[in-house]
């Protein structure tokens, strides 16, 4: 089996398995421990404050958006492109079709190309911010740079692959490797916030809400 086939087959399964399984375990552990030691969550449980808290931060309707409009804007664009580009990329859709005959809507290639560049640009903005601002630098550790690199690597290699810069075979292998690496590290690092965000916002929303105070 070639390296390409390995990454395209078993390792991809493994990566998806660790990613999905890891996150399921994270959520189960959270719910189990919280039932024992975080009783206020259940005592003051409220769907209303749960959704209000999540919605005000999913849409930037909060104090931070007013106080830090640039970071909010860049953060938003970054996360949007980060999720939408790989899901609706034509080349990825083709792979899904080849393997499973599943087909769905995909982005025009030029648009996806720009979105890739935007993702990388936003990532660089965050990297620069970490270096330049003293109050961000002080809480930054090596893991923050590494995780940012791991997140951007699939986009950089994907861009290079699409334009066929360098040796295509090498670049596409690196692209798959970094994509799988990113999936694998999510459950074990702060990247798990993609899902835990909702739990954290929910518990804080309810904690503020039970005093009729908005947390946004």
């Amino acid at each position: 089996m070639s390296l390409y086939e390995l990454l395209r087959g078993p390792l991809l399964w493994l990566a998806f398995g660790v990613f999905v399984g890891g996150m399921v375990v994270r959520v189960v552990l959270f719910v189990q421990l919280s039932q024992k030691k975080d009783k206020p969550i259940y005592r003051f449980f409220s769907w209303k404050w749960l959704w209000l808290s999540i919605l005000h931060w999913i849409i930037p309707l909060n104090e931070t958006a007013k106080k830090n409009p640039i970071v909010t804007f860049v953060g938003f664009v970054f996360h949007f492109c980060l999720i939408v580009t790989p899901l609706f990329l034509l080349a990825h859709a083709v792979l899904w079709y080849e393997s499973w005959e599943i087909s769905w809507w995909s982005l025009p290639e030029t648009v996806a190309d720009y979105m890739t560049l935007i993702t990388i640009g936003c990532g660089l903005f965050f990297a620069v911010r970490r270096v330049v601002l003293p109050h961000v630098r002080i809480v930054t550790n090596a893991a923050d740079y590494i995780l940012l690199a791991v997140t951007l690597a699939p986009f950089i290699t994907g861009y290079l692959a699409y334009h066929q810069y360098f040796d295509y075979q090498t670049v596409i292998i690196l692209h798959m490797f970094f994509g799988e690496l990113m999936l694998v590290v999510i459950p074990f690092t702060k990247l798990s916030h993609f899902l835990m965000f909702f739990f954290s916002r929910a518990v804080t929303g309810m904690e503020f809400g039970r005093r009729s105070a908005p947390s946004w």
Partner: protein
Amino acid sequence: MAEKAGFDPQVFKKAVEEKTNARLKMWLEICAHCGLCADTCHFYLAADGDPKLIPAVKGKKVLEAFKKKDKIDEKWMEDFYWTVYGECTMCRRCTMFCPFGIDIATITSTGRGLCVSQGKVPKNLVKTIESYYEHGNQMEITEEDWVDTLQWMEEELQEELPGATIPIDKKGANVLYTVNAREPKFYPMDISQAAMVFYLAGEDWTMSTKGWDDTNLAMFAGDLKAAGYVSQLVRDAAEELEVKRVAITE
């Protein structure tokens, strides 16, 4: 100034395990280190933007306590003590600006609880906690002095509003009115003014000889056992007097 010196690693480890909960673990794991909490903190702003004072740094120290629970020593503890008691008022403003809603106040409170396990609590807070246990209020006011103060205020009140009273231990009243112990100690007129409002509003209310202090400095100290005891005093008073609700002073 800490109440007691010395460090007991066994007790510390046990306290860490006891205080680990799902929210705390999640928050300490997902903090993205974005720094958006920085200029929401009055300590940071008052120190002309000293980065060491941003909320995320304080949260990180608590994370350290949980991660390195076997390697903590007295020196680390001393620094930690100043951070959790001296650099955060647990106002929760940073939480309002945190995209994840990470509750630094709760995290600080947990940190204070770890200090409590080592007997490291600011002296004045220790004094108030002792007073709660001994007198049921933070200002060492005896029951006799308390009742005296209420009767004295009732007399003053009646000079202005004949017929107005300050009911004590009236069973089945609608409202149990509780105060901050500073009021009988330093500003007793506040009590007669509240009584004026109750009287003019025609409210069926009472004050209690026990469980009348609604402050809870034990909670502020991070001593949750004592905090529970203090809250229970008010609850017990309310149940004994069979009131419908408890009102707390402004």
